[in-house]
């Protein structure tokens, strides 16, 4: 019988008292009843008077010119919405504005939206969609890493010097595959146009991203665009930038038709045409000195962006910045390219480039140790970063790093040392593996200061309740509860006297997107400062409004051109151990148990953090083992949840987690980022465990039974 072991007290308390001294103590989340009773309305449940349905007609070619579109007879009350109806700019505002709202002359991926059919009856819409004939002139598509559209590089120290001459060099080449979010609630959005104002309601992470996109596509003034978040059924990055595309589409459609327009994706459509994690190819070279230490490393990262760049440049940056993992390598030469291919565009997914890199670097460092005949634990420890060390980009690890303590802890609770010896015996198909990882909290470099410039307001009401006015979204991660706890703790009022509503851009300032593990640290930090201000000015019965704006800590210096300096103001750290058993006959991997020890500064609510840990870790482990998605000639082969496999309750393993206490002075109550970190360590831990079990090097993920069989069988020759 497997045991569920959880270090901290999990039992939530019903009283909603929060004490500043005990912020970590779990409280019951404030939005549970609506969810267990099914009464909370997600976008697909909302009834909007007079709304029309919309359905997207998509490209069936990976790359082609549209020669002609022939339409059947369109009955009254039915509309075709296409690029000609976009009043503003036909580009979706993301970091790189290359994606059109509706395709123009050329289509660049199978599934690219060409137009939308809108009307009252879905059966009629279907007939119209089936009746539309698109004539294509095929062009030659590209599917390999050939066309580089973004290139970055940075240097630390002088890597070339260490590669010169007669040096021992170790090489490694690692691949990672797609990962699809499979948030349980598919994408959905509604557009309403009334009195010259465009309103968009939907499942989203970033209301202001959508606002900026709709302003651009509609050519409207900002006060004529309003975005409202509906309850969001999971996101994981998949609703970071993608909803900006469909937000623009329904905004345009509702303006043209004069009626609200409702666009709800079905699961196959969602899988086929929305963003995914970038597949990657990562190449390393390590120069080894006379003491068997790594003196220099050369790294190249290739990412497949799909047909449009969008956020890919930032994903590339994060992957590149993580090139030395948790290790201090004095000399680095890191470069990266985003390659455009004629496949569905890729985008944000929890980790944002770090899961790819941490898989690669953790495997590589272990492979180097193997090749040198070094004990892998000792080898890794020698290179482990210490407080004060220079980061990969020449910034500084200013804050205490407690990794040694965390490593000892995870080895103790997992029995790692004894098991790794035991499982290394030939013929033993059990394995144990340990990954070390970090995650930079907040936006890379000067993003917070230059682009986001977050603002938060606290509105004290006459009845002495306080409304937090921020644009951050609850998507299951507990922001509703944690952000309220922060305010309540400082103001010393009960949590249920703090109000936080789903953001509406007409009512809340832009506190920045709900991404990049910034919500608690950055936005919570702003809320904390605002709360302190409000506390000082507090007068019972009086209405007061305070505002707080983001100010970058003075010590953060970052050069966008050379990618040097402090890439992040803070880092969260983690260690994972995975124990597996590989079936000799079927090569299937059973994950027996997982352990994690994490430094997120301070847990604003321990149980919410544990929830992030358990969910994120399983996503990371599955990314490393069972989540298989590949494309053939630009068409995804796994297009439904039957074929794209995510874990069920029978696939998850018991998780034992420990949250360390290492408060970060600039975070609210000492908190750092925690949303993405838990996923990052999952794949390398399980891949290293599989290596230990089968005694072969794992060079790519997902490490499927088919791949494991190959590794075991090919050796026989």
């Amino acid at each position: 019988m497997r045991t569920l072991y959880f270090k901290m007290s999990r039992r939530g308390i019903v009283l909603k008292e929060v004490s500043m001294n005990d912020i970590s103590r779990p409280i019951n989340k404030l939005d549970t009843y609506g969810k267990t009773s099914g009464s909370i309305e997600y976008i697909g449940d909302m009834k909007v008077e007079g709304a029309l349905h919309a359905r997207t007609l998509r490209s069936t070619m990976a790359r082609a010119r549209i020669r002609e579109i022939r339409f059947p007879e369109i009955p009254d009350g039915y509309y075709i919405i296409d690029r000609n109806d976009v009043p503003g700019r036909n580009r979706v505002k993301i970091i790189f504005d290359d994606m059109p709202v509706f395709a123009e002359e050329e289509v660049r991926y199978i599934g690219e939206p060409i137009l939308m059919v809108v009307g009252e009856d879905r059966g009629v819409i279907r007939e119209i969609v089936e009746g539309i004939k698109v004539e294509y002139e095929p062009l030659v598509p590209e599917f390999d890493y050939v066309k580089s559209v973004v290139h970055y590089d940075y240097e630390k120290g002088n890597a070339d010097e260490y590669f010169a001459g007669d040096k021992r060099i170790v090489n490694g080449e690692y691949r990672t595959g797609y990962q699809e979010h499979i948030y349980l609630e598919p994408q959905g959005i509604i557009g309403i146009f009334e009195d010259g104002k465009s309103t968009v309601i939907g499942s989203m992470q970033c209301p202001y991203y959508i606002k900026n996109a709709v302003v651009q596509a509609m050519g409207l003034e900002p006060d004529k665009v309003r975005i409202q978040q509906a309850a969001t059924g999971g996101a994981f990055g998949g609703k970071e930038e993608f909803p900006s595309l469909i937000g623009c589409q329904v905004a345009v459609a509702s303006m043209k038709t004069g009626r609200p327009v409702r666009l709800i994706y079905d699961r196959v459509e969602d899988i086929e045409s929305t963003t995914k994690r970038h597949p990657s190819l990562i190449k390393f070279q390590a120069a080894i000195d006379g003491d068997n230490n790594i003196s220099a490393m050369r790294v190249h990262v290739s990412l497949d962006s799909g047909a449009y760049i969008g956020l890919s440049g930032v994903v590339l940056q994060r992957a590149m910045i993580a090139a030395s993992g948790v290790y201090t390598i004095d000399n680095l030469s890191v470069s990266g390219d985003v390659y455009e291919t004629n496949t569905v565009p890729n985008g944000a997914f929890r980790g944002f480039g770090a899961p790819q890199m941490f898989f690669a670097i953790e495997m590589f460092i272990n492979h180097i140790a193997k090749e040198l005949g070094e004990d892998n634990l000792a080898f890794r420890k020698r290179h482990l970063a210490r407080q004060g060390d220079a980061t990969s980009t020449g910034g500084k690890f200013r804050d205490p790093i407690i990794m040694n303590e965390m490593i000892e802890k995870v080895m103790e609770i997992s029995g790692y040392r004894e098991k790794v010896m035991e499982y290394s015996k030939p013929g033993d198909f059990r394995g144990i593996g340990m990954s070390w990882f970090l995650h930079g909290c907040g936006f890379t470099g000067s993003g917070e200061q230059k682009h986001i410039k977050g603002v938060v307001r606290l509105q004290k009401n006459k009845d002495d309740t306080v409304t937090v006015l921020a644009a951050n979204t609850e998507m299951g991660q507990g922001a509703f509860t944690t952000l309220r706890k922060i305010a309540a703790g400082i103001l010393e009022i009960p949590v249920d006297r703090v109000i936080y509503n789903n953001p509406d851009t007409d009512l809340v300032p832009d506190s920045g997107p709900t991404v990049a593990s910034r919500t608690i640290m950055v936005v919570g930090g702003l809320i904390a400062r605002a709360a302190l201000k409000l506390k000082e000015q507090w007068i019972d019965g009086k209405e007061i409004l305070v505002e707080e704006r983001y100010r970058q800590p003075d010590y953060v210096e970052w050069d966008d051109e050379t990618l040097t300096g402090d890439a992040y103001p803070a880092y969260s750290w983690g260690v994972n151990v995975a124990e597996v058993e590989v079936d000799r006959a079927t090569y299937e991997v059973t994950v027996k148990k997982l352990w994690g020890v994490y430094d997120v500064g301070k847990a604003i609510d321990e149980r919410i953090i544990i929830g992030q840990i358990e969910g994120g870790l399983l996503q990371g482990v599955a990314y490393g083992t069972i989540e298989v998605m590949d494309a053939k000639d630009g068409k995804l082969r796994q297009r439904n949840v039957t074929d794209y496999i995510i874990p069920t309750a029978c696939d998850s393993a018991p998780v034992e987690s420990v949250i360390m206490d290492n408060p970060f002075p600039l975070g609210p109550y000492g908190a750092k980022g925690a949303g993405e970190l838990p996923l990052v360590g999952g794949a390398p831990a399980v891949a290293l465990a599989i290596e230990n079990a089968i005694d072969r090097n794992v060079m790519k993920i997902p490490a499927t039974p088919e791949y494991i069989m190959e590794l075991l069988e090919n050796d026989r020759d």
Partner: protein
Amino acid sequence: MVRSFIPGTYEEALGLLDENKMILMAGGTDLMVKKRNWAGLSPLFDRDVLFISELAELKYIRKSGGFLHIGSMTTLEDILVHKQIPEILKVAVRLMASPGIRHIATIGGNIGNASPAGDSLPVLYILDAKIVIDGKGTERMVPIEEFIVGPGKTVLADREMIKEIVINDVRFDKLHYCKIGGRKSDAISKVSFAGGISYRKGRIEEFRCAFGAVAPTVVRSRSLEASMKGLGTEGIESVRNEVKHGYNELIRPIDDQRSTAVYRKKVCMNILDEFFDKAGDSK
């Protein structure tokens, strides 16, 4: 628009079936996905639909002589909990579908769907299942290996339906069931295997095995099985390679979005090895 018929009795159903070419709606767990339309719209049926899953006359499990008679509309859940059902069939059912599907999916529907990856099929093959077909005024019985002729293809003609499944109430001394999917539960098989052995005086009396998802239809070879009859431990070892080679010729897996031919073949041989080990182990 297609018409739907919801007969109140089995007689009525047969009568309706005889009049028209219809699509048979059992639990709907395969059909409703195959024919699905956009949300809110009726599925895309191209001919009239006959609803048969609620016909009480087709829901039963009866023992008679050395045989088990299972009404075609018996749900997978009922099969899972019924005392008389052989253990190996229960194992297959539990692994093949989630509770939300088991409560409405029927054994008749599963067989009629004839998926090459159908998990109940290898078990039914080694239990010598016979399909009782009713329609056009007559009843006939067809062994399952003649009933299913290709992926999704059966000998069921228009105006016919599956009435009953008859299986041998054979008790094996040793059982081996394997299902390899993409995860531990609720997955379509890459490979499935059902095997059973019974002994008499220390020698093999019955040796049966079948592979699913590795050929257009389930792979079972009575001739290879016959070559195992009467063998003791040494005898089993001496024919192992030859018999494995025989199955190797019959197994013709493909590459698809779930797995590769090379993997499927290797795993089949590995499982067969495990099965042989079990057979030779005198305990």
